[in-house]
C-alpha cells in the first residue's frame, strides 16, 4: 500500500501538470455550463420533458469529463509509458508495473469524480440544479460509465501498434463521442440520421444513464443503459486484456 500511495501522489501531480487533462477535466465543462447557462437559463422546457436545459446539461457535461479521462488521459498515459518503457523500469523495482497501472486508474477515477463534484457544485450555485433521483442510481451510473469508457480507452491502446496510432484513435473516438453522444449538444436537437449514429456510441448510454439517474427513480430505460454499459465494459475490457497478453511490455 505504501508503494501504491507513493505512485498515486506522483501520478496526481503529473495529471495536474498536464494542461490538456487539467483544462478539459476541471475548466472546460464548467465553461460550457456557464456559457450555455447564460444563454438558455434553467427554466422548465417541454423539449426536456419539463426539466431545465441545465438540469439536463450537468449530467451530460459530466460524461464529457469521463470522456476526457477515459478516452484521452488514461489511454494516452498508458501508451506513452508502455512505448517509452517506463512500465518496464518500474518492473525492475519492488513496485512493478501493476502498482503504476493501478495508481493511474485510481488517479483518473478520482480526478473524474472531483471534476464531477466541481461541475455539480457550480451548477447548484448558479442554476439551482437538483438531483431528484436516487443517490444510488447516480453513483451506479457514474461508476459504470467510468468503467465502460475506461475499458474503451484500454481497448484502443491494445489495438494501436504505437503511440501515434493510439493518439489518432483516442482523438477520433473522443471528439466523435463528445459531439454525437449528447454530452455537449443535446441529442434532442439532432436530425434523425445523427440520432441513429449516436445510438452506436458507448458514451451515449453513459449520458442517458446519468440523465435518467439525476431526475428519476431507476426505471426500465435506466437499467437498459446500465446493461449496455456493462456489455461495453465486459467486451472492451476482456478483448483489451486478451490483446495485451500478446503484447510485449519490454
Amino acid at each position, binding site marked *: 500500500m*505504501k*508503494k501504491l500511495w*507513493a*505512485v498515486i501522489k*506522483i501520478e496526481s*501531480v*503529473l495529471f495536474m*501538470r*498536464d494542461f490538456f487533462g487539467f483544462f478539459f477535466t476541471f475548466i472546460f465543462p464548467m465553461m460550457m455550463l456557464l456559457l450555455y447557462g447564460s444563454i438558455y437559463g434553467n427554466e422548465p422546457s417541454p423539449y426536456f420533458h419539463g426539466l431545465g436545459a441545465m438540469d439536463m446539461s450537468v449530467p451530460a457535461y459530466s460524461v464529457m469529463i469521463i470522456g476526457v479521462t477515459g478516452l484521452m488521459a488514461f489511454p494516452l498515459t498508458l501508451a506513452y*509509458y508502455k512505448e*517509452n*518503457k*517506463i512500465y*518496464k*523500469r518500474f*518492473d*525492475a*523495482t*519492488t*513496485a*512493478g508495473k501493476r502498482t503504476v497501472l493501478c495508481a493511474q486508474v485510481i488517479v483518473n477515477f478520482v480526478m473524474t469524480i472531483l471534476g464531477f463534484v466541481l461541475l455539480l457544485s457550480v451548477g447548484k450555485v448558479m442554476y439551482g440544479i437538483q438531483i431528484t433521483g436516487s443517490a444510488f442510481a447516480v453513483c451506479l451510473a457514474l461508476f459504470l460509465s467510468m468503467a465502460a469508457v475506461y475499458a474503451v480507452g484500454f481497448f484502443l491502446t491494445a489495438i494501436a501498434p504505437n503511440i501515434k496510432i493510439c493518439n489518432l484513435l483516442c482523438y477520433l473516438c473522443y471528439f466523435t463521442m463528445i459531439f454525437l453522444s449528447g454530452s455537449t449538444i443535446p441529442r434532442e436537437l439532432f436530425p434523425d440520421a445523427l440520432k441513429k449514429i449516436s445510438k452506436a456510441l458507448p458514451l451515449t448510454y453513459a449520458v442517458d444513464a446519468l440523465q435518467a439517474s439525476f431526475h428519476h427513480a431507476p426505471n426500465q430505460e435506466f437499467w437498459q443503459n446500465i446493461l449496455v454499459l456493462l456489455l461495453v465494459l465486459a467486451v472492451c475490457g476482456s478483448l483489451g486484456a486478451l490483446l495485451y497478453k500478446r503484447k510485449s511490455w*519490454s
Partner: protein
Amino acid sequence: MQEVLAKIENLKLNYSTATAVQDVSFKLYRGEILAIIGPNGSGKTSVVECVEGLRSPTSGAVTVFGKNPYLHRHSIYKKIGVQLQDTQYPEKIKVGEVCRLFSSFYDHPADWKELARQLGLWEKQKRTVKKLSGGEKQRLSILLALLPRPELLILDELTTGLDPEIRRGMWDSLLHIKKMGTTILLVSHYINEVEYLADRLVYFNQGRSLFEGSQEQFREYVQQNTPKALWQENLTLEEVYLLLSPQTDVLELEEIL
C-alpha cells in the same frame, strides 16, 4: 570456494520472429565485476533482461540468489539495482520527485540526496526529467540503480552519453562500490571500460556465449583463434577484442559527398 550469485544455464530466448540467444551459460560470483561484451545485436541485453527477470527464457535456467528471477521478481529486487539500456521517465516528473518515489519502494534506501550530490544532480533536483541532457539522464538512471543499496548491480551501457571526466569518475566509483561488497554485472561496448573494471568477462557473438573467463584467459582465447601473423604482444584489450571482429570496411564517403 566463491559463492555463485547468478547462474545461467543453456539459456535460449526466442522472440516472435527470431531466436535472440541460445546455448548461453555463465556464472556470476559474489564480489566480482563481470562484463558482457560483444557486437551489436549479439544478445547481451536480452540475456541481462532474463537475469533481471524482465523476460522469461524460452528454455534453459536462470537463477539469481537461488531463485527464478522471472517468478520472484518482487523479492529479488530488494537486493538488485538495475540501470536499463534505454529507459525513459515521465517527462514532467522532476528529478527530486523521481528519486523520492523510487526511494519509497525500498525499506532501507540509500540517501538519494547524497547520491545526487555525488553524481552532480543535486542542483537539478527541481528540473523536469525532460530538460535533462543525455548525460544527466544517464546519471539519474545510475542514481536510481544505487537506491536499493544493491548486493547485485546490473548496468547496461553504463557510460553511454557521459563525458570522459564523468566516465572515469564513474569507473572509480564502481570500483569503490565493488570494494564495499557489491557484485556488478556490466554490459558495455567500451572495451577500455571493461579492461579498467572487469575481473572476468563473457564474450557473446550471434546470440551465443563463446567465452567466459579472466582478461588474461580472454587474451589467450583470442590468440588461439587468430592467425599468428596478426597477433602482437602488448595489445590493449580493445585491440585484442577487435581481432575477433570481422574487418570493417572504411566507408567510401568521398564518392557520396
